[in-house]
C-alpha cells in the first residue's frame, strides 16, 4: 500500500488495508480464477464468430461478430452437423429416460422391500460403480457384432444397440444415489395407500415417483451429460456419419485438419455446449446436493 498518496487520511488508509486483508485479496484470487476458468470458453466463442476460418485468425478475441460459421455448419453434406446434434439429443434423452426408469425401479425395490440378497445386491451395486463400461469396450464391440447377426437392428452401427449398452450402466452409477433419496420418503405413505387399496404399481407410479422427482431430475441430467460426453463406445459402434453423435463427429472433424476447420468447429462446439451448460446452470443446486449426497450419509 506504499503507493497511496500521503494526503489520504490515516483512518481511511487503515480501513482500505483492512478491507484488503479481510475480503479484498479474495477478490484478487477470484479475478485470477475467473480468467483461468473462462478464457478458453471466451476464446472458443470468439473464434466461432470469426469468419476467417483458421486457427491463426482466431487469436484476436472478438475482432468481428459474424454468424457465417453457424450457417456454414448446417450446409456441409460431408459433416452432417444437424444429424449429429439430433442424434446426440435423441440418444441422450432415451438413455437418460431409460436410466432413470430402470434405476428408480431398482431403488424402489431396495428401499421398500426386504428380500434375501438385498444386502449383497446393494454392495454389488457399489462395487460395479468402480468399473466403468469403457473397460469392456473390446467385448462390447464383439458382443454387438454377435447380436447383429441375430438382430441386425441392434448390432454394430445401430443407435438402438448403443442405447442398450448405455442402459447396461444404468444400475451401476445411479441406483445408490436414488436409493438414499427413496429412503427419505416415509414408508408410512406407501402403507396408507396400500390400505386404501392401491396396488404396488399404483403406489410406485402414482405416489413415489412424484415424491422423488428431484433425484430423478439429477440422475436424468447426469446420465444425459454422461452420454453426451461418451466417446469410446459411440465411436466403435457408430461408423456411418449420419448416425454419429457430436462427440464422435466433431472429434473426427477437428482431428483431421485442426487449424483449417477451427472456426467452424468452434461454432459447432458452442452450439453443442449450450444445451448441456444451460441444463447444468438451471439445475446446479440439485446437482451439488447430488454430488455431495454420496459423502454425507
Amino acid at each position, binding site marked *: 500500500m506504499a503507493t497511496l498518496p500521503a494526503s489520504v487520511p490515516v483512518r481511511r488508509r487503515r480501513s482500505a488495508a483492512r478491507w484488503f486483508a479481510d475480503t479484498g485479496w479474495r*477478490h484478487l484470487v477470484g479475478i485470477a480464477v475467473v480468467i483461468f476458468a473462462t478464457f478458453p470458453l471466451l476464446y472458443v466463442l470468439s473464434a466461432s464468430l470469426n469468419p476467417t476460418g483458421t486457427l491463426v485468425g482466431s487469436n484476436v478475441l472478438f475482432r468481428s461478430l459474424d454468424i457465417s460459421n453457424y450457417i456454414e455448419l448446417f450446409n456441409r453434406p460431408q459433416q452432417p452437423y444437424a444429424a449429429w446434434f439430433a442424434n446426440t439429443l435423441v440418444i441422450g434423452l432415451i438413455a437418460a429416460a431409460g436410466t432413470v426408469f*430402470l434405476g428408480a425401479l431398482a431403488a424402489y425395490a431396495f428401499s421398500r422391500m426386504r428380500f434375501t440378497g438385498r444386502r449383497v445386491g446393494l454392495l454389488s451395486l457399489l462395487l460395479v460403480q468402480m468399473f466403468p463400461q469403457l473397460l469392456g469396450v473390446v467385448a462390447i464391440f464383439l458382443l454387438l457384432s454377435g447380436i447383429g447377426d441375430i438382430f441386425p437392428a441392434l448390432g454394430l452401427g445401430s443407435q438402438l444397440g448403443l442405447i442398450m449398452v448405455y442402459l447396461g450402466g444404468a*444400475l451401476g452409477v445411479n441406483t445408490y444415489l436414488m436409493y438414499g433419496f427413496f429412503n427419505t420418503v416415509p414408508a*408410512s405413505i406407501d402403507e396408507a395407500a396400500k390400505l386404501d387399496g392401491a396396488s404396488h404399481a399404483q403406489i410406485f407410479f402414482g405416489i413415489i415417483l412424484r415424491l422423488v422427482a428431484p433425484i430423478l431430475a439429477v440422475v436424468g441430467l447426469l446420465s444425459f451429460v454422461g452420454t453426451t460426453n461418451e466417446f469410446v463406445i459411440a465411436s466403435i459402434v457408430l461408423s456411418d456419419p449420419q448416425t454419429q453423435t457430436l462427440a464422435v463427429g466433431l472429434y473426427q472433424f477437428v482431428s483431421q485438419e*485442426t*487449424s483449417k476447420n477451427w472456426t467452424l468447429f468452434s461454432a459447432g462446439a458452442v452450439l453443442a455446449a449450450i444445451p*448441456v451448460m444451460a441444463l447444468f446452470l438451471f439445475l446446479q443446486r440439485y446437482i451439488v446436493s447430488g454430488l455431495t449426497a454420496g*459423502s454425507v450419509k
Partner: protein
Amino acid sequence: MTTSTPGTTPPLAPRPAATAKPRGVHHPGTPSVRSMLIKISLLAIVDSLAVFALFTLLLKESWVVFGIALAVTLAINYIYLKPGLLPAKYLAPGIFFLAIFQIFVVVYSGYIAFTNYGDGHNGSKEDAIESIIANARTRVPDSPTYRLTVLEQFGTFSFLVTTPEGEVFVGGEDRPLDEAPSARLDSTGKAIELDGYTTLDFGSLIQNQSVIADLSVPLTDDPNDGALRTPDGSSAYLYTSALEYDAEADAIVDTATGERFLDRGDGAFANEAGRELSPGWKIDVGFDNFARAFTEESIRGPLLGVIAWTFAFALLSVGMTFALGLFLAIVFNEARMRGRKFYRIVLILPYAFPSFLSGLVWLGLLNQDFGFVNQVVFGGAAIPWLTDPWLAKASVLIVNLWLGFPYMFLICTGALQSIPDELTEAARVDGARPWAIFRLIKFPLLLVSVAPLLISSFAFNFNNFNVIYMLTGGGPRNVSAGVDAGATDLLITLVYKVAFGSGTGRDYGLASAFAILIFIIVAVVSIIGFRRTRALEDLN
C-alpha cells in the same frame, strides 16, 4: 419441480394401523384392467422378440446361446406372470441390461484376454480355410461359360446358372449350387426366373455391381472344387484355387509348387520357414498375452511407462484439483465477501462445458504454430506444448486441472459449510490460531466426508479417456515401442488404440489383457482406499 415433497405429507404419517403392519407381507391388491392390459401387451412384445431371437439362434445352431436365451425368456415370464415375487418384478429390467452389458462384458473381456482374437484371427478354422482358398482362386483358363441370372431374395443375392449342358442350378455365397429344376427358361434355354426370388434387372445389376463382382458361389461343399464368379453379371466362370486343403494331414497344400502349410498350433497355417497364410483363426492362447505384455522387450518398456504415468496422472490430477478446489472454497467461504454467487456460477462453467469439447478446445489453444497460448500469451514463441513428451504431460495435467477444479470446489464448499461453527468458535476461545484451527479441526473433518469422493475421483481419472485422447491422442508417440504407445497414454487409451487403432492392426486379445490389468489395479486401489476411509470415519 414436484407437486409435493416429503415435508408436506405428515397428515398421512401417523397411522398406527399402517405402520404396525409387518414388513414383507405384500398384498398384490386387485390389479385394474388397464394395468393388466399394459402388462400383458409389454410381455407379449418381449416374448415375440424372444421367440424371433430363439428361432434365429436355432437356425444358426448356436446351442449355448439358445439355451441361455431360452432360460432368460422363461425366467422373465415366470417373474411377471406369477403373483408375488415383487422384488424380482422391480429388479429384473435393470439386472437384465446390467448382466448383459456390464457383467457379461467383463467376463467376456477376461475370455478374450486369453485368445489371439484380432486382425487375421477373427473366426473359426473352417472359415479361415475357406477364406485362404477363396483368396487364392484364379479363373480356370478353359472354364466353360455358365449363363447367369442374378437373383435377389431378402437383400441377399443368388446366382441362377445354366450349365453348357442345359442343367439349372441356384446358389449363393456360402450356399453351394443346388439343382433348381423349377426355374423358368427363356427361348434360348437360359434360366431367367425362380419362384421366391426376384430377378435383377439391368439397372439394379449396375447399382450393385461391386457386390456382385465379389460374390463367389461354391460349386460343392468341398472348397477345393472351386467356385463360380462373374465379371459382368450375365455369365459366370469357374475359379479354382492353387491352394488346397488336405484334411488328413490338416495342411494347406500349394498344388503349383507343392509347398505345405501346416497347423502348428499358433492359430494359422505356416510353412517350414514360418511364413503364415492369412487369415488365421481364433485359438485360446492361455497366458500368452499377459506373458507377451511383460516379457516382450518392445511391449514391456512402453507398458510399464504407461502404467507409471497412469498412476502419476490420476494422483496428480486428484491432488492438484483438490488443492485448488479446497483453496478456492476457503477463499470464497467468507460471509462478508460480496459477489460470491457470481464467482460460484463462473467457476462452475468449465465443469458444465462438455468434457470432450474441452480437450478439443485446448488442442487449438495449445497448437504449436498458430495457437492462442504461443501466439498471444508467449508472444509468438514456438513452445511444443503437445509434441514434447514432458511438456505434453504438463499440458494434459493443466487441462485436467481446468476441467476438474470446479467439482472439487463444489464438494469442498459443501463439506466446509457442513462443519458446525461451534467447533471453530470453541477452538478460537481456547486461543487457537486460524491456521491451527484449519489444520487440526476443519481439515480432518473435511477429509472424512470428502475422502470417498477423492477415491472415486482417482478411479475416474485413472480411466480419464476423453482428456487424453482429445488433447494428445496419447502422443507424442514412442517410436521404438512395439505397440502404439505414447508419452501421455493412459492404460485405457492404450486399450482403445491396441484394439481399434489404425496404426498397428487390431489385437483384441492383447487389448483385453490390458483391460483386465486396469480392472485388477482399480479393484485393489478401491478396496485399500475404502478400507482406509472407513478407518477415517471411525476416528470421527
